[in-house]
């Protein structure tokens, strides 16, 4: 497998318009940012202007949600062209997508749907990832899905994903929040899952918050990204870092976005898990000079 591009081995943050101004004043030595490129597939205007500001200063990661890598429909040419155009313009360090499908017979579901874990689907995914990587001119990472259904398909997920990555020449993005949620929802052993992943394949880790289903409570967790990272996910992050070694860790937050100070508190905790000294915040939400991370 070709060598993966390297984001700074620090905590990064999913970039949201809610805190563009505060995020922009941080030092590029201290943080990197990730965006969903689909949100920037626009003709012009403030979104692209903001992205340009960030891309000039920080290491960026593009985390796609629209490719439908596992789908049967042909890749959407407009989407792929728009993604390539953004990559060419903003030159992100890393590009990632999901090991799922989201489009069928022309309809886009705006959700990440599970794939049957069979040898046949592995072959399909390898071919699709190869086509996608060639189409955008970049090696990608693929993210493990959040699972809400138990399955009796042929392969367990680590085996399924690792073999796809090795054969397709892509890397893996290990979302430990997804693994934790899947462990609760489908009864798998989360720590065993993490330890079954080949470390050399993993280029990035994601952490996020979840919510319990309104009806079924804690028996069914929903991957909402709208809550603080839960303690079991922090614990699983420690397991992942112990197994993989330090990796760039992304803090995702897509809903109920709190004050930036609170986001930075979680960001500091992720850096601490990576073995970095926690940063102290100034009144301007900037990191103090004497707290530059090791």
């Amino acid at each position: 497998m070709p060598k993966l591009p390297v984001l700074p081995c620090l905590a990064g943050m999913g970039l949201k318009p809610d805190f563009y101004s505060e995020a922009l004043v941080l030092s590029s030595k201290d943080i990197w940012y990730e965006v969903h490129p689909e949100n920037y597939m626009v003709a012009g205007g403030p979104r692209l202007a903001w992205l340009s500001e960030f891309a000039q200063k920080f290491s960026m990661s593009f985390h796609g949600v629209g490719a439908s890598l596992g789908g049967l429909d042909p890749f959407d040419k407009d989407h792929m062209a728009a993604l390539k155009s953004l990559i060419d313009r903003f030159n992100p360090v890393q590009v990632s997508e999901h090991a799922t499908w989201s489009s069928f017979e022309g309809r886009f579901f705006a959700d990440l749907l599970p794939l049957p874990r069979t040898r046949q689907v592995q072959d399909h995914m390898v071919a699709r990832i190869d086509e996608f990587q060639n189409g955008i001119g970049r090696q990608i990472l693929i993210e493990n899905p959040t699972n809400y259904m138990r399955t009796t398909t042929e392969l367990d997920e680590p085996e399924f994903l690792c073999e796809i990555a090795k054969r397709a020449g892509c890397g893996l993005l290990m979302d430990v929040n997804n693994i934790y949620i899947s462990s609760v929802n489908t009864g798998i052993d989360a720590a065993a899952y993490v330890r079954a992943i080949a470390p050399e394949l993993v280029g990035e880790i994601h952490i996020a918050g979840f919510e319990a289903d309104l009806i079924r409570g804690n028996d069914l967790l929903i991957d909402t990204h709208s809550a603080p990272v839960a303690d079991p996910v922090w614990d699983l992050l420690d397991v992942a870092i112990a197994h993989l070694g330090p990796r760039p860790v992304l803090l995702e937050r897509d809903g109920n976005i709190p004050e930036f100070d609170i986001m930075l508190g979680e960001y500091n905790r992720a850096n601490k898990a990576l073995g970095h000294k926690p940063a102290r915040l100034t009144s301007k939400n900037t990191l103090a000079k004497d707290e530059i991370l090791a």
Partner: protein
Amino acid sequence: MKAYMTAMAKVVDGSDPQALARHKDSGFDAKFVSVYRNNSVSALYDVLAANYMSVLDIVGEDFFLKLVHAYIEKYPARQRALNNYGANFVKIVDKYKIDHRLPYLSDICHLDRAWTLAHLAADADLLAIEDLAKLAEQGTNLETVTLTLAPGVALLALQWPVFDIWSNIRNDQDLEGKIELEKHKQYVLVWRYENMVNYRALEPAEYSFMAALAKGETLAAAINAAIIDMPPDSGEPEITALLPNAVGAGLFVSF
């Protein structure tokens, strides 16, 4: 895999919630499959709520969800980037007129749509007043000039005078007292300048001037259209200010 995806698609699009449960070969236990349907609706709800925030503010979340369900069924998402999703939302708002009993809601919907289109529009080099002066210096009779509106500029002729209601919602300001509307036309301009979406109500003469230019008519024809709609007690100064005001606001692309 196609049989599984066909079944799963029927669950997610809501047409057959039990489709996966009946498809025993998928290997999936369908007990919690409804989560995927909920997630899909929730994602599209969020997109439409962002693109029609004033409609949501007026009708509330429960009724808005009803509109979203109807919209998704009639106009499912086809594009992977959803920034522009909801182009036909006003048709669903109109369809449910009997339920929401808000005859002015369509106009609110048009205003929200204009805001989104202005926000997402392409960047452009804008016409400056100096460009017109230069043209005149080169001997061009400005009366014969036609101008092109900048991307995202919208001229709206509303059936109800809802601009104040809408702009208050956009600015997160409370509406004071009970709103009583008397049906009559109101003209509104929505555009983006220096990456900010702007909006203001237009006088009939301003609207006629801009509408004529938008149709490709000459400056002379646009000014004549404005004069026709100018109240009798108005003088020439307002007419002469129409062009510099519009150019200064960044409403036209440069030559």
